[in-house]
């Protein structure tokens, strides 16, 4: 039972360690990040562990070279540094060449709630989604993280995995899901459909509980693979709804709200849509609790529930 309380990054590291033990091609490349969670990896598998120092451009470039030599490289850093500081290298070295390198970013949304916008992961989905061939995973709990870590080992091409630093409440305990489909319907209700990703899946489930108190029944979809989007599954899930809601701890511009809106337009579906995400501003507020910052941006359970109830009652 203990393993279920592991945080996302610990869960990921544990699985990667077990894979790397059996496959010498697997290499973990970090930029001076992830000290404790990778301790076992770097002590037991020193020849498969590489700390390039605080040099993310080189981290990705070196990983590209390793991949060209047949290695299966995982680059690991906090989200802003794993995605933005080295965006050029991800774009040209990994995506243009279609190399099998997995970019692991830690600290989705406001996970690093006391560290400010330099350490917030609020643009990564938009940026990674702009790159042809990049697969994007946004797991919602540690059980899924373990599965995605294993899937990433088998999947060729460039990949991005967006992790929370610490544990999120478990969503998939007791649920049979192999995480290959890209999205999972966690709850079924007839009045509206909430599509959420990452940490916001938990909030979406709580929102659905709140709505139920007002006799509003919500379907909740966990969109855990953002690219390539399983359009068929999503369209099937939202088909009968007149009201679709998206939730993400990420800027509204270019995130999963944008993605779903594009899907609706492309398929000529007319319905009411509400996108919850971070509005167009940097969060220069600080608190030990991530939920405090979420609330400031209207992403907490109460704000979302109140907004939805207001919209429904109109």
């Amino acid at each position, binding site marked *: 039972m203990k393993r279920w309380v592991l945080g996302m990054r610990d869960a990921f590291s544990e699985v990667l360690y077990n894979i790397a033990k059996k496959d010498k091609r697997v290499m973990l490349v970090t930029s001076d990040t992830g000290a404790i969670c990778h301790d076992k990896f770097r002590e037991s598998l020193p020849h498969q562990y590489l700390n390039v120092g605080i040099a993310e451009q*080189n981290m990705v*470039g070196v990983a590209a070279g390793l991949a060209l*030599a047949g290695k299966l490289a995982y680059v690991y850093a906090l989200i802003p540094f794993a995605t933005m500081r080295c965006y050029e290298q991800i774009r040209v070295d990994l995506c243009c060449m279609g190399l099998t390198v997995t970019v692991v970013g830690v600290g989705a949304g406001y996970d690093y709630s006391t560290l400010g916008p330099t350490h917030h992961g609020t643009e990564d989905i938009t940026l990674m989604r702009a790159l042809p061939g990049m697969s994007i995973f946004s797991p919602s709990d540690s059980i899924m993280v373990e599965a995605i870590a294993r899937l990433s080992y088998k999947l060729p091409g460039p990949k991005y995995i967006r992790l929370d630093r610490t544990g999120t409440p478990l969503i998939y305990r007791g649920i049979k899901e192999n995480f290959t489909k890209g999205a999972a319907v966690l709850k079924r209700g007839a009045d509206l459909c909430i599509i959420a990703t990452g940490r916001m899946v938990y909030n979406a489930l709580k929102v659905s509980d709140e709505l139920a108190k007002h006799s509003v029944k919500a379907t909740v979809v966990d969109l855990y693979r953002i690219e390539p989007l399983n359009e068929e599954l999503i369209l099937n899930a939202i088909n009968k709804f007149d009201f679709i809601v998206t939730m993400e701890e990420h800027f509204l511009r270019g995130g999963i709200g944008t993605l779903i809106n594009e899907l609706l337009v492309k398929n000529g579906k007319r319905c009411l849509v509400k996108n919850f995400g971070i509005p167009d501003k940097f969060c220069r507020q600080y608190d030990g609790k991530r939920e405090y910052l979420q609330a400031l941006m209207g992403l907490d359970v109460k704000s979302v529930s109140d907004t939805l109830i207001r919209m429904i009652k109109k």
Partner: protein
Amino acid sequence: MKRRMRKEINIYALKKKANWVRNKVLDMGIKAGAAHLAPAFSCTDILVALYHGGILRFNPKNPKWKSRDRFILSKGQAAIALYAVLADLKFFPVSELNSFTRAGSRLGGHAENTVPGVEAFTGSLGNGLSIAAGLALAAKIDNKDYATLALLGDGECQEGSIWEAAMLASHHKLGNLTAIIDNNGLSAIDFIDKYINLDPLADKWRAFGWDVKIVDGHAFKEIIPALKDVRSRKSGKPLAIIAKTVKGRGVSFMENNPIWHYRIPVGKEIKSAKKELLFKYNQEGQR
């Protein structure tokens, strides 16, 4: 030993080859209507030395041969010259060179790794040395004896990522890694020392833990001996070869003139460029 090496290298043949490459590059560029001619002419002799001077290990019939040396053209804008060299070696048909950057061609304006013999997709300056370092590191981990070489522009050394890679290479004692810097003193729009001076360039590489050799980048008798032992160097340090070159080398009006970074000769210029590129070396390779 030295005498034997000198005997092995047929300077005349190499000069003739380099001249063929320059002529081909000029034709390709004119046909395409756009090309980085001067950057290509700057490193033509280096490329010919690598592929015809007995430096690189490769197999045109099997471009992905596992034991091949890895050559990364980090200054990807010189791809036009690399394509000419590779086609001449039968990695792909010479006739394909006529399709350079034309509709449907795989020969892009920057090094396309879909072209047989091209190791990595480059053109975004500053990326190639990291890739090369990754390849060299993998060789070291896996105990492979291939050498990894990267050809950088000197202006490219203004990119911070070059120095990130330089630190990693020396820290990991990548003696199997060589960076050749095409040191022509010019970048896209100006003389480097006029805006962001790189000198002392050799001292910078030394300070980053590299062995440094300085050669005349147009003299085969200097380039080839400097590169001769890249696969079996005793030093644990990576090797930087600073090749002093002339941008636009071979066509006097292109030489050392910033305007020719991405210009194609037109009208009378074509005639005089071709005239200057007529092969006129004697048996000793002297012009």
